[in-house]
């Protein structure tokens, strides 16, 4: 068998047996379908297995709930992004409808960029969005955010660098 850390794996396996059904029921109260709740509960255990070591946990249900809540917020954020993207496509009369595969890839890309930008300070993020989405120049961004043109240039470069790892993948 595998040489993986069996104590950690067995522990998480035990948690799955004991708490998966409970977590599904709990999530179902906040989500529109049982299937969606099962997906989030399953992803919760995938995340737990990817932690370096979680045993022993005094209150495993509290930890599972915290991970699941984070995944639920990500799901809602993804839905918002998808809706915004589809609205933008609707308004752009020049663009043709993307295939379902292209659409899924684009939404994944948007989500990845969104997560990268989320880790940046507010003004860096705002500079990037004003530049990329609104097409503002450095003087216009500086005036909008009350910062110098040099800062606008630096902030944009910093945001672009943050997105580079995603572009290189």
């Amino acid at each position, binding site marked *: 068998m*595998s040489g*993986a850390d069996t104590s*950690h794996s067995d522990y998480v*396996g035990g948690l799955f047996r004991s708490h998966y059904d409970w977590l599904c029921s709990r999530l179902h109260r906040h989500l529109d379908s049982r299937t969606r709740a*099962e*997906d989030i509960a*399953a992803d919760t*255990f995938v995340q737990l*297995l990817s932690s370096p070591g979680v045993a022993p946990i005094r209150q495993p249900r509290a930890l599972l709930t915290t991970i699941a809540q984070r995944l639920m917020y990500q799901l809602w954020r993804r839905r918002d992004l998808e809706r915004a993207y589809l609205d933008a496509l609707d308004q752009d009369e020049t663009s043709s409808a993307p295939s*379902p595969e292209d659409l899924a890839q684009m939404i994944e890309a948007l989500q990845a960029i969104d997560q990268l930008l989320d880790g940046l300070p507010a003004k860096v993020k705002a500079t990037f969005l004003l530049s990329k989405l609104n097409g503002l120049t450095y003087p216009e961004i500086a005036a909008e955010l009350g910062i110098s043109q040099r800062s606008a240039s630096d902030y944009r470069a910093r945001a672009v660098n943050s997105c580079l790892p995603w572009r290189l993948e």
Partner: protein
Amino acid sequence: MALTYSAGLRDTHTYIALLPDLYPRAVLPADHRLASYDEISLAMIADEPLILLDIWPSNQYFLEQLKAAGLQPNIAYKVPSIELVTAFVGQGLGVSTLVTLPEQIQTPSGKKVVTLALSDPLVASSTVVAWNRDKDLTRLTTEFVNHCKKEIKLPKHMRTMSPETA
């Protein structure tokens, strides 16, 4: 109408295949003693803890393959997603069989899994659009079937695994 697998259908339904036939593959931890083999049989892994993808009709399909080979499954975990199957296998909690393979063979924790062809005579898994055999297709449903035939494709990472697309 339903997009489903032919395996779960009764003879009250008729269907059209949308994807090439696919066959299950064994999923093992990358450091498993059999991981370097090109092909294994179900009997070689039958005694090991099985991580069963517990979604109907996939669960029934996998168990029937074992039964047809005269083997008794040793089910350790019934899990509800492909990602969780690979995560559990990657952690060394057992082995599995899957038809739909995850794009990332590396699990989120960095533990790699391998997939191997199975030498047993297996029943193909066919993804189909199905409907009640007593109902005729209307113009709208015919259009829907044509749309499915045109748009539904194997994921890019699986296209080399089908004999019909390789």
